[in-house]
């Protein structure tokens, strides 16, 4: 077992239920390290916090007990700690080393933030992943942001959401950035909603070079600021952007960074980004000049429209654009684009495509089980036209889960039909 490489251990652990994973965590240092890395990779995705995906389902299950929404949650934690022996009281109280500071209502949130500084000062060193909600009606939630960087020396990922720019900047301008501590493990940063670019810039000035994953949503900035900011994240290899105009954003940022994984989500919650103004061709045209050898994964969410008026495209006469991104290995794309001109234009020249996911956007299959025959019918044109390296197509739909009271994705998988047996 000691000789098994990390990826094989990850494969074994991926089958384990949570209880057994907890046991394995204690077996030896190496196993603990592999599990920690694996959980980080599979569970902690800031984007999932607001969008139900398989990852969100995992977060929901695994972070129970790590979410703090009121002073009572701190009191509960203190109560449990008080039952431990004095030497045990400094141990990690956060499940999977994850802390979520969330708001249910202003009153509870205010009370939570009154007790938060003491808790973070005492236990902040145990937090690896933080999701931090800020609300301008609770000024302490803004003030306490300072605590994160000064008391969480082992932090790996931080996601802020619902920042109100004016209030935040008032506080941020008072910070002395020269005193920000070194955080050697800090590599993932996310901003979900109402973010000012000034704030991102403040953090980028200090931690930009070590950030590898960046997620942005509802960012307010003009084009010049994009240029200024993006150059401050020279080692970024994963970029997730949603509810932004991707054409403008990528035109400005991709020339700076050789992104490996690009994820774009459009037109879900932001009315002014009229979904009809985006189509795959426009986006790909924008991205095309920046495709590099490193660009391997493209994920497109949202109701992208086709420019084709008659999208039963005559495939036989269709020529793939020579500029298609050949380095792509994994693509996730809205199901609504299946069979359109844009769909083939994107995929026909991708010679190394290994994974394709079609994501349902219009609830065609919600709460429905897709049968084998139905799946094969959907995928049949793709099997015929795309390289045999592509062996599996996934179709992502959604299903309401009564236990959790919300929708979670269901993924149906279709394999390339078996070839005729050679006699």
């Amino acid at each position, binding site marked *: 077992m000691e000789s098994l490489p990390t990826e094989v251990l990850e494969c074994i652990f991926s089958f384990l239920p949570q209880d*057994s994973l907890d*046991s394995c965590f204690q*077996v*030896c240092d190496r196993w603990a390290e592999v599990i920690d890395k694996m959980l980080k990779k599979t569970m902690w995705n800031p984007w999932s916090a607001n969008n139900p995906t*398989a990852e969100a389902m995992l977060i929901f299950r695994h972070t*129970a007990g790590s979410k703090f929404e009121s002073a009572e949650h701190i009191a509960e934690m203190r109560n449990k700690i008080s039952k431990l022996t004095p030497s045990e009281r400094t*141990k990690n109280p956060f499940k999977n080393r994850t802390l979520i500071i969330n708001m249910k209502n202003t009153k509870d949130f205010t009370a939570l933030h009154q007790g938060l500084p003491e808790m973070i000062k005492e236990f902040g060193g145990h937090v690896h992943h933080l999701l931090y909600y800020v609300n301008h009606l609770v000024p302490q939630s803004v003030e306490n942001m300072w605590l994160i960087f000064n008391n969480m020396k082992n932090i790996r990922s931080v996601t802020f959401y619902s920042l109100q720019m004016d209030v935040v900047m008032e506080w941020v301008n008072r910070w002395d950035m020269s005193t920000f501590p070194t955080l050697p493990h800090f590599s993932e940063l996310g901003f979900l909603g109402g973010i000012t670019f000034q704030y991102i810039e403040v953090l980028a000035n200090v931690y930009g070079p070590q950030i590898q994953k960046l997620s942005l949503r509802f960012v307010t900035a003009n084009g010049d600021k994009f240029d200024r900011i993006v150059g401050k994240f020279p080692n970024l290899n994963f970029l997730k952007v949603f509810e932004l105009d991707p054409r403008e954003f990528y035109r400005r940022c991709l020339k700076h960074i050789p992104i490996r994984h690009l994820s774009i989500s459009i037109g879900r919650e932001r009315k002014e980004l009229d979904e009809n103004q985006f189509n795959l061709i426009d986006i790909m045209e924008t991205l095309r000049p920046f495709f590099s050898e490193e660009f391997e994964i493209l994920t497109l969410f949202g109701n992208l429209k086709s420019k084709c008026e008659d999208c039963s495209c005559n495939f036989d006469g269709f020529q793939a654009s020579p500029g298609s991104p050949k380095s792509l290995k994994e693509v996730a794309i809205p199901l609504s684009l299946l069979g359109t001109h844009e769909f083939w234009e994107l995929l026909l020249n991708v010679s190394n495509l290994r994974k394709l996911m079609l994501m349902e956007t219009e609830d065609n299959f919600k709460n429905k089980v897709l049968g084998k025959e139905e799946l094969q019918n959907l995928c049949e044109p793709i099997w015929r036209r795309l390289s045999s390296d592509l062996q*599996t197509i*996934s179709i992502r739909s959604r299903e309401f889960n009564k236990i959790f009271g919300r929708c979670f994705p269901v*993924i149906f998988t279709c394999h390339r039909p078996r070839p005729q047996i050679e006699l």
Partner: protein
Amino acid sequence: MALVRVISSDGAAFLVSQRLAKRSGKLKTEIETFRKSSDNSEAQPEIRIVTIRAEILRLVLQWLQQHQNDPVLPANQNEQDGRGDAEMGQSQWDRDFLAPMDLGIVMELILAANHLEVKGLLDITCKLVESKITGRTVDEIRTAFKLKSDFKGNEEEQTRLENRWCVEN
């Protein structure tokens, strides 16, 4: 039928069809590399696997033979599709195939499947190991897999306490 000679670390040679061998990602690459570098298109490739002994290589080839008409699974299938491939792909034949093996052989088979890039075999062997972990205590897992705790001093106690807290939650 085009053949390829696959030689184990202890020198045993297995003559298999190239079609079958190409179901291993590693062997497929080796065959294609041989073709590109060889002037004689009829020449029979010979591939030496220095890390896998004959007994294990025979098991891998036996599994490939049985599953020669299955779709080839991408190497990182589980990452986005979630779990379940191993369970879905495990047949009665697979269960009978794995049943007589002791843990040492299973470990060698996992390493071989990983090295030769045989995703289906890797999945079912990993699933088998998983079944030997699930439901066991930390000490039982250590005994079963002959592992020693390498935590220093009170680190183990600390981890145990951290875990106790998690379980209580």
